[in-house]
């Protein structure tokens, strides 16, 4: 019995450390990188690295928003279908209304932002558990995405391709730049601004945050707004890349984004996690997928392996959370 407790304590301590530190993730990636480069010399080429970053850029941007909400203790499951809805609107604006690229970008971002604000207000005012509330909203956006597009793919007819595929200096894809810039902004917001610190406080202990004079509702709504904005922005990259909007696109984003956050050390119960950790979480997911591709693991099996990795990461996070709920002494 006591041995058992001792083991649990040790594991908890280890998890706690690994959660808080991005170094563990870095270590894993370096080792994986070395192993992979032995297995396949193509792995460690500049081209492949940019490929991975490019592939992960859309998930990465969405994840930054989802992470903000998670830090405040709010789960946002809407991002995938929200993205599809905005994608539909943007595609219609570009192809049928003939909106210029600039206006379409503004439209998509505003639509994402407003939807995010709406999500936030709904969650805050109804006081429903955020998982359930955004699960409901997710289904609504699933419907909206179909309604907007009348259930069809909407083709951009060659327009807007540059936004998601242009490579700066012929090598750095634009989406990678978006991803980097947004990650840096997210880092600054969470690390150096009062807004970010308040999100941590709200997620860490809402009652204590309230008694410290923090406006809980306003900050939660803002977190959802950011999440919505980034999902809206991401929809532009996606439609630009594939030249069309599809009403069912992006459905895997919410769970993958949460998984990447959690792998990066964000606590599902809020108040914990850093942007560098989340960034590495996103990249790690990409590297795993990329490695499995290079190793020619059939894609059906890839899902199984990726899922297992996500479960392991979330399980570790839950153990940490269970410890948090328990007696701190």
């Amino acid at each position, binding site marked *: 019995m006591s041995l058992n407790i001792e083991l649990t304590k040790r594991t908890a301590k280890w998890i706690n450390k690994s959660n808080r530190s991005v170094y563990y993730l870095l270590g894993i990636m370096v080792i994986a990188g070395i192993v992979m480069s032995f297995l396949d010399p193509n792995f460690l080429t500049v081209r492949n690295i940019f490929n991975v970053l490019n592939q992960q850029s859309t998930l990465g941007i969405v994840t930054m928003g989802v992470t903000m909400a998670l830090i405040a203790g709010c789960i946002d499951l809407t991002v995938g279908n929200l993205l599809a809805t905005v994608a539909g609107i943007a595609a219609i604006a570009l192809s049928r209304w003939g909106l210029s690229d600039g206006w379409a970008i503004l439209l998509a971002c505003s639509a994402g932002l407003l939807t995010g604000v709406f999500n936030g207000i709904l969650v805050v005012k109804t006081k429903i558990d955020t998982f359930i509330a955004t699960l409901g909203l997710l289904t609504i956006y699933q419907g909206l995405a179909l309604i907007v597009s009348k259930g069809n793919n909407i083709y951009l007819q060659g327009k807007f391709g540059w936004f998601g595929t242009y490579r700066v200096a012929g090598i750095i894809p634009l989406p990678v730049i978006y991803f980097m810039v947004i990650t840096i902004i997210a880092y600054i917001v969470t690390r*150096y*601004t*009062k*807004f970010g*610190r*308040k999100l*941590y*406080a709200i997620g*860490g*202990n809402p*009652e*204590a*945050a*309230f*008694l*410290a*004079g*923090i*406006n809980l509702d306003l900050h939660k709504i803002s977190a959802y707004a950011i999440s919505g904005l980034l999902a809206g922005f991401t929809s532009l990259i996606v439609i630009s890349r594939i030249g069309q909007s599809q009403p069912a696109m992006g459905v895997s984003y919410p769970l993958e984004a949460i998984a990447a956050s959690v792998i990066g050390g964000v*606590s599902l119960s809020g*108040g*914990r996690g850093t942007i560098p950790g989340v960034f590495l979480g996103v990249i790690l997911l990409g590297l795993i997928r990329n490695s499995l591709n290079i190793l020619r693991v059939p894609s059906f099996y890839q899902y199984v392996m990726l899922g297992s990795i996500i479960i392991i990461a979330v399980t570790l996070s839950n153990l940490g959370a269970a410890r*948090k709920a328990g007696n*701190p002494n």
Partner: protein
Amino acid sequence: MERKVLLEVKGCSKSFPGVKAFNKVDFDLYEGEIHCIVGENGAGKSTFIKMLSGALRPDEGTIIIGGQQYSYLTPALAHQLGITTIYQEISLAPELTVAENIFMGMEPVNRFGFIDFPKLDRESKKLLENLKIDLGVEALVGSLNIPQKQSIQIAKAMAREAKIFILDEPTASYSSNEIGNLLALVKEVAAKGVGVIYISHHLEEVFSIHDRITILRDGNKVASHQKNGVTLEKIISEMVGRDLSMFYTRELVDINYTKAVEFKDISGGDIKDVSFKIHQGEIVGLAGMVGSGRTDLVRLIFGADQKSSGTVFVEGHEIQVTNPSLAIKAGLSLLTEDRQKTGVILEHNVKWNISIVHMANTSGHFINERKEREDVNHYVKAIDIKTPTIYQEVRHLSGGNQQKVVLAKWLYADANVIIFDEPTRGIDIGSKEEIYKLMVQLARQGKYILMVSSDMPELIAMCDRVIVMRQGRIVGEIGRGQLSEENVLTYSIGGIL
């Protein structure tokens, strides 16, 4: 007539880390007897109930029920032995009728195995009439008020032929009329042979129904008195009477009576028309029994709950306090009772915890990390918070140091009015004294200090003045000269000095 002993407790003790909550107590209960237990907050009443209902195991001693000896009870065993604890709300199903609740789990069935509703209603009606409870058996329990629900619980226990009833503060939030009804019901039940353990802060209730009164103090049984064998004054003197060595001696500070923080006609929730002042440099105590509304009052003052009316003046200026943020801007602060749940963020480090209020209530969008680090380090040193670094997570600190972190965050936020709610609960004696010293130091600096406390020695040692609350109102005020446990207690239980 020789009466049957239902319950006998011999030499029962229970310790919690740092406290002997229950110390070698003997207790017995006869058939048909109403045995009242009185004592201050923390005297050991709840511990005793928990041992009888099987929620706690005694460290030593025996419990004898029906001739059988037990070293401890479990909830199932307590139930089986006929011990029932009557609570205010729980254990009834709101969506079922009175009759269905009374016979829940033992409903009469007809020959097809279905519930025999006519019989159920008949039996329930008989039972209620027998107990003189005036309620329809088909009413939904959810539509009843608390006193009615409580009487249904008593009827339910009677239907199960429970032998021992425990009522813990049953009349909190009752009107005087409803109290009368409940006391009549309790007498009715006792007349049918049930033994009743009745626990209450309200000595007048206790006096009107008791067959015997037992007084507990700091986990010890002080005395037992038969009916008519004792006066109210005697009981109060037995409830108090602590050793003087338990009292801390503080330095007195000159109070500036020209400046004050004033609360006028504060109402909201259970709080009714509370008015009082704190002068500059004064430590004002807020005493009262658990449930007298002290915590509710300080939450109203701080804007954490909404007042229905009332005004707050800080040094002559009226301020609007409708949320904590406004209170903080006016210089108010609140160190909550449950510091782990509402005071600190356990998973965050000392730095974040100390800077939170300052950070959240000053202008600007960016955090100056260097300044923050210096300021936090300053407070850590100034009030001697024992932590290896300011990056230590607060959950690793001791209770006393966690409390100091909470204090530091309010000092950093420039709080002028400092409201402590149970400042030393769960803190070891050494840290307690440090907190007391800090309080005096703050008073000397010209802060306004309000302290809610259930710890009598603490109130008496620390306060320049004590305000006593009862049922959401202020019922008395005692200056330092007249401050004694007896005086505070007399007001707390509804007496007059």
